[in-house]
């Protein structure tokens, strides 16, 4: 029996791709044939040989097919046409209104994904999702029997070394406030930049905001952010684009604080990465982020940019508070490391194997 996975895209450092890789390892360990299929135009050059073209996908009735669903794409059509037993893994659909004006084509794809959601779920034999937040969203759509399988997290490979050039560039006396994630409108980076502007101007001018994430996810949104940074006269905001794993690790190593003002997330894996690297985390209490933090980090709601800037300072300078935060984050990561994904997947697939 084969257990294959169909993805919309397959990219380095992408949370969904990482989860697919971990699941493939599990399925192969169980002795099943297991491949990842994705549209070649949406595959990172470095991963071209690690997956198969979507057009090559074929299945039998005894096989199982998992589809990681989050946007309308040809992958969903291949999944629905598959003869295999189907599992939809729902990673959340970003509300289309975030992209209106920034990218009409993406907004249309998100709307299409939202309107097809019930149909894809109905034609699936099982529906998994990565957070209770997503499960509640599916329930509101009338989809029952959803099983929650929190997004898998794997710590950095032991042989991965942080990029020394990045460390040299950003180590030093300035306080580094870090954001890692796609530069997309739902991430509300404008709120983060405004808060940083307050912190930098009124509290600590020896500080910088480092934004690590692809500029091409929503190019018009990125243009707006660059213009905003110019308006605020903030040369200390660094846009670092998408980076390979060694550089990504280096940013976490030089970070004094990780902050996200994102308003919509299915889960948010960078929170886990930051905690795993001993960086205190501040996040807006939105979407699946409270679940990802699971009793660790700082969660906020309804703060003005000046209040958020003052919160940065509190976490950066209050040693006792920082220690308490880091201890809770370590406990959270310990719980994440103690998970037994293999047993969880076996339980989820009971009756199908």
């Amino acid at each position, binding site marked *: 029996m084969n257990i294959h996975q169909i993805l919309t895209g397959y990219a380095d450092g992408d949370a969904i791709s990482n989860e697919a890789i971990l699941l493939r390892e599990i399925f192969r360990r169980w002795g099943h044939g297991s491949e990842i299929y994705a549209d070649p135009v949406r595959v990172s050059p470095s991963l071209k040989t690690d997956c198969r073209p979507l057009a090559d996908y074929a299945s039998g009735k005894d096989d199982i097919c998992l589809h990681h669903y989050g946007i309308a794409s040809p992958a969903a059509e291949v999944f629905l046409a598959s003869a295999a037993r189907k599992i939809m893994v729902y990673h959340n659909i970003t509300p289309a209104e975030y992209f209106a*004006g920034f990218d009409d084509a993406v907004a249309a794809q998100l709307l299409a994904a939202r309107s097809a959601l019930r149909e894809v779920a109905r034609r699936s034999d099982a529906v998994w999702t990565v957070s209770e937040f997503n499960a509640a969203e599916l329930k509101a759509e009338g989809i029952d029997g959803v099983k929650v399988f929190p997004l898998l997290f794997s710590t950095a490979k032991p042989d991965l070394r942080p990029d020394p050039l990045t460390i040299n560039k950003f180590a030093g006396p300035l306080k580094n406030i870090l954001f890692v994630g796609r530069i997309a409108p739902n991430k509300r980076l404008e709120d983060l930049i*405004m808060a940083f502007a307050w912190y930098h101007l009124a509290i600590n001018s*020896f500080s910088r905001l480092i934004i690590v994430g692809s500029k091409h996810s929503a190019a018009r949104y990125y243009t707006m952010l660059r213009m905003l940074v110019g308006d605020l006269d903030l040369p200390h905001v660094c846009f670092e684009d998408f980076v390979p794993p060694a550089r990504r690790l280096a940013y976490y190593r030089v970070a004094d604080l990780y902050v996200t003002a994102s308003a919509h997330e299915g889960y948010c894996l960078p929170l886990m990465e930051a905690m795993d690297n001993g960086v205190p985390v501040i996040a807006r*209490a939105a979407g699946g982020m409270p679940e990802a933090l699971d*009793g660790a980090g*700082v969660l906020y709601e309804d703060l003005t940019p*000046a*209040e958020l800037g003052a919160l940065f300072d509190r976490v950066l300078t209050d040693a006792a508070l920082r220690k308490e935060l880091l201890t809770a984050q370590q406990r959270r990561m310990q719980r994440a490391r103690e998970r037994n994904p293999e047993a969880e997947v076996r339980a989820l697939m009971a009756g199908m194997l």
Partner: protein
Amino acid sequence: MKISFSGQDRTRDLGQALRRRAAAMEHGPAGRRLAPLPPEISALALALAQSDAEYLDNLIRLIRYRDGVNTLDFEIPRKPGLAGLIITRLKEFLWKLLRYQHDRIAFRQNLINTQLTSALEFEHARRQAETDDLKRRLAELEKQGGGNPR
């Protein structure tokens, strides 16, 4: 406002402290508080667009406000102590010394920027006029042909 630290609700104590701190920051000296642009010309006006076309119209309008290099003085960050004071004074002196040369360069850069902005505006206006004309002619043809050919 709501804040939790490591799962504990701290809105009452830390929230109040943050509120007071933020209020003090908002009433701080001019160089140390944020002075955002009016909403109609702020970069954030781009977020109000409801379509790609509307975004482009807004962007071109906003670029017109930003095609000049700002040559106003700016705050030079100062580290504490005597060394910090000396370094800051040195930077201020160098800035004054080079101000004339800097302004000359900014003048030349501004000439290029304004010409590029004008070219962008003219091109956008020409394309808009062409599109409007094509739409008008298409509507006339559809009217003559008795409806939408599709």
